[in-house]
């Protein structure tokens, strides 16, 4: 199973929820954040107003990699909806780029969390089938 065929219903919902261009980029193998095209600082749905530059515009995507900080992480054991029942437990993590933009994404359960001592060197879309929702995989640095 690859990303394109994962839970089409959920993907469709994500796409419809905000014309999520990050989802399309995710499927093509990039972690991106959907940002204001003008200042690139805010994550926002299409057509809404950027909190920082106040422009109301179409969106661009900013590739989300390299200099990111993991700011919060939690292992979820309660499914929020039936489509998540097979997925739990899984981990949700929030990363923050140096620009201040945040992205919160699930990680598959195969990734062992050691959140207090290691920071990820890179995060990439994970193509395993352990988690039936778009999720990420982390590569840890050797700084520990």
């Amino acid at each position, binding site marked *: 199973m690859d990303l394109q065929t994962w839970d089409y219903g959920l993907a469709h919902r994500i796409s419809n929820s905000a014309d999520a261009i990050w989802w399309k980029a995710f499927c093509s193998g990039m972690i991106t954040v959907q940002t204001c095209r003008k200042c690139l600082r805010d994550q926002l749905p299409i057509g809404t107003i950027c*909190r920082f530059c106040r422009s109301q515009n179409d969106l661009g995507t900013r590739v989300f990699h390299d200099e990111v900080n993991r700011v919060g992480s939690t*292992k*979820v054991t309660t499914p929020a909806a039936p489509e998540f029942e097979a997925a739990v437990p899984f981990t949700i993590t929030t990363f923050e780029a140096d620009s201040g933009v945040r992205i919160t994404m699930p990680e598959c359960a195969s990734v062992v969390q050691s959140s*207090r001592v290691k920071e990820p060197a890179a995060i990439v879309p994970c193509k395993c089938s352990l988690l039936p929702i778009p999720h990420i995989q982390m590569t840890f640095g050797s700084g520990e």
Partner: protein
Amino acid sequence: MRYTGASIIGIGESSVGKHPHESTQTLAASVVQAAIADAEIDWQDIDGLVVTQPLVGGFPRHSLAVAEQLGISRQLAFADTVSMGGASSVLSLQRASDAIRNNRASTVLIVAADTPRTGQEREESVRHFAKQRHPSWEQPIGMLNLSAYALLADEYLRQHSLERDALIEIPVAMRSHARSNRNAAYTDSMTREEALASRLVSDPLRLVECSPINDGGVALVVTDTSNRGSSSTDSIAIRGSGFATDYDSVTYKVGESVDSPRRAFARAAKDSALGIGDCDLLMIYDSYSIATAIQLESIGASAKGRAPEDFREGKYSTDGEVPVNPHGGLLSHGHCGGATGMHHLTELIKQLRGVADGQVSLRDGVGLLQAEGGIISAAASMFLTRMQ
């Protein structure tokens, strides 16, 4: 001291727990009867109504439906529904106080009741809280409210280099407080070891660090202080309040700290000319252990990263330096859905009147209600004082 503005002259409350034979409407009716009797007023004295939006049994224009059920529709000059999660307690009272100050009404009834424990299936509750998350960034990845709080907890523990189980001190303290409260839902003893044995529901939060959903209701009568004068020892003055917000969804949190409780408190302190050092007790909205810690530190009661240790050392116990939630808080007294946090308010009033089950000692008769809604998205603070 001469008091002006609005004061609380009557309260009615139910126990918190399972009310399988009650609906949201019948619970509301019971607590309203009790509040009116406590205030010693007549039904026709009420000309304002503020209600909170319940999870179960709500109407689209809920204040109008409650007025209709109580038979007070035609006498109302003011009606409103507050739906700001856990901050609704302070904001309901603020709304009533503002209506009185602006001569929109002279006596306002506040009603908050809900039956989410017995009135709906667990799955419906989960769905409700899932739908509260951001539709684009949070719902699609399976985030619940408790996971959003867990992200805050993880960030807090790392930021202050605390142990993963540091926050467990808070539910342990709340259980200890609830044991003397006849209306609390959970009164059996709980040691630190027993709390640590509770299962992780969203790491680092354990089940006992998440407030349990229950049924319950509260009603209050608020009036223009000049109607009652300052002679009644049962009247409680609304001295000042403040509101602040940073974001709605936690995904939009910017930077390391949650700042809205600090700003809401500063506004309330300025409005009332009171400070944290004036308070005999603090009522802190404790939907999750982490919410309690962040708010206590934001208002300056604890130093940053110190709240769990302050609980462990007894600073916030019922006989401590400044008691916090002597009724047991949401964590042990229970979370009543759309009526959540209202029992913090009735407990504070009973404490200031000197009639609470777990009565703490009072110095000046000043208490603070610090509340938050969403994921500490909306913060609201209010000082109440005993009239003397």
